[in-house]
């Protein structure tokens, strides 16, 4: 391999002194400092800043509006426009879940329920958020379009038990999702 000899650039006297460059840099910093004090930082609006500089004051300010459609947050259960809980506890998510975060106890739907013909729903559905790795496999495997990763990402709790989302909470976060395939309608 050929050796390339690199010669150092010849610096002028001013350059050798460094001082002019420092002043130049200070000037840029000062310009931004004044702007931020006046509340006119560049790009501040789009970053949803507090108005003082470009720093986002989390959690008072959040970037949630900027999250992309494909963002993978907390896995949740959803109901549909007919107010039916979509999960039929087939347990495929429990099977596919890489960190084994999901635990389901299946149950039967009572015969007097309006959706009795679906026959099956989860009696208990727990997702342990200390285990969940937000991979989205549960959403991908679900044959009933019942589990979706929502844009919530800040799961906090004071105990391990707090970090387990039970069925009630999963439906709370998940909410209603419309426009899904309704295969339990009368005509399939």
């Amino acid at each position, binding site marked *: 391999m050929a050796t390339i000899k690199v010669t150092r650039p010849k610096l002028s006297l001013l350059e050798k002194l460094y001082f002019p460059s420092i002043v130049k840099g200070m000037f840029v910093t000062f310009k931004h400092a004044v702007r931020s004090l006046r509340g006119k930082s560049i790009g501040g609006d789009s970053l949803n800043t507090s108005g003082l500089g470009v720093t986002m004051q989390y959690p008072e300010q959040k970037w949630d509006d900027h999250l992309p459609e494909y963002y993978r947050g907390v896995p949740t259960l959803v109901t549909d426009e007919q107010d039916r809980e979509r999960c039929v*506890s*087939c*347990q495929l998510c*429990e099977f596919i879940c890489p960190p084994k975060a999901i635990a389901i106890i*299946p149950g*039967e739907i009572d015969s007097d329920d309006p959706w009795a013909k679906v*026959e*099956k729903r989860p009696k208990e559905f727990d997702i342990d958020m200390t285990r969940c790795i937000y991979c989205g496999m549960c959403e991908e495997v679900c*044959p009933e379009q019942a589990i979706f990763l929502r844009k919530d990402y800040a799961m906090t709790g004071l105990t391990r038990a707090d970090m387990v989302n039970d069925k009630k909470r999963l439906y709370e976060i998940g909410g209603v999702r419309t426009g899904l395939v309704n295969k339990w309608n009368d005509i*399939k």
Partner: protein
Amino acid sequence: MSDPTTTQLPKDLAAENGMVNVQIDGHWIQVPRGTRMIEACKIAEKEIPHYCYHSKLSSPGNCRMCLVQMGMPPRPAPGAEPEYNDDGYQEIGWMPRPVISCANTVAENMGIRTSGELVEKCREGVMEFLLINHPLDCPICDQAGECSLQEFSVGYGKGQSRFKEDKIKKPKNVKIGPRIRLDDERCIMCSRCIRFMDEVADEPVLGFSERGTHTTVGIFPGKELDNNYGLNTVDLCPVGALTSNDFRFQMRTWFLKETDSIDTHCGTGANITIWTRGNKIFRITPRQNDEVNSCWMPDSHRLNYICPTDEDRLTACLIKADGVHEETCWESALEAASEALKQFDASEIAIIASGSQTNEELFMMLTLATELGSEHLSIVARDQASDNMLISSDGNANSTGAKLIFQNSAPSSQLANILEGVRNGSIKAVIAASENLLEAAGFSNEDLEALELLISINSQANATAQASDIVFPGAAPAEKRGSMVNITGRLQRLNAACIPPGDARSDWEIIRDLILSISGEVAQEAPQSIDALSKILASSIPEFEGKHLTAISDLGDIVAETGHSIPLLKREAERKANGEIVG
């Protein structure tokens, strides 16, 4: 094959042994004359998908899934001799249309193709028709994961449906009996359940009604499927049309671990598979053993299992102080038991073993009796009415084993003496293992109260445990490894599917530690594992020579002649001899 007069043709060689030559997918094999084509293909290790065919039932040939292409040598022209090729076979003339392989038998020089365009197109067509009215509700169907319709759809189906019309509606979620639910939309009309109830259970209550795509399987008016063998129809059903109420929506099959074991509810010792997840039993299904239970088992036995998660399980040693049981550790419980036993003369102690204990446990019971010098050792007889099917007249799973180990043709004969001894005060201490004395043993509450010392091993909190001074928590049959001998003298193996809950242990371990505690010997000299114990047993009892646990074959080995037979197997043999079933 130049000169047929000097060398024999393959057909003659085969005929000498009652065999015929069949070409399966290009390879010639010999199979016994009269073999069904589907069985011949099984011998050649070629899988043929099928729904309605079952070797223990008649073959109506109505699912059409087992279609194969068949060929025979063309009939020679009048006066012409058949021509043989170099290998001694005739050319096969392939038929243009398929045949079902389940109801046709093989013939000399027959050819079978289990693949190829014709067969594959036929299977695709059959699958498409079967799925036309299928609800495709696999996410809620209990059969998912072990469903032939799913498997063959993936393996041989078209992958898509061209059916645009509305599916036909049929009854769903019908309770056809106390233990079984029927979903007619899932049914593929294989008629296995109908044939089972008619031919094996001998209580025909199921049948088809309507015609064409409206055909519906149903229960006869005014009848219900409450036969004690009814749940076998659930096992037989290749799809999820028949499901068991007990297992319904409990767990998906792919989570379950299968453990081969045997049933301990009667002397037949039906071969079973225990399905568990974690330490919980979810269901029990029969396992095929043509010498014991064929492919079936009674509902009363399969639903009646003891699970480690049951609420009435004993999980710690108990010592009674002032009439109240207190939990304690193994060491103090064993010490208390041996100290208490030393207060009595050998003739004052009786040992009641159980006919449902394994050979290894019974051997330890015998060793305990020898150690204590007690002559009062007995099992509890459990005579019951046989159902003339699979339930034996002996309610104990291992009476034959007790006979062999105690070297006594009537191992329960001492029980009456013990009971009399308890009543007249000559027996003051009783050690009872895995028996509720208030049931079959004939003890009354007063008898138990009259005892000065009652030590018992129990897996469940029963009345005997309640009355005992010292209780050791024992393991249930599904938590034990060991061997048993059934009424026909077949030595079979139990395998542990679960671990005992809490402090509970297998009986053999408890008795071993009790013996050590009494004798004060060093623990290292006693058997340390069930395998070590089974080797000692195999060398001590002549019938078990060389039959330690790992040496017992999966379907058991005959170790004794008892003269007993299993009624259901007799009838099955008759039907096989009549050619009704393949067997």
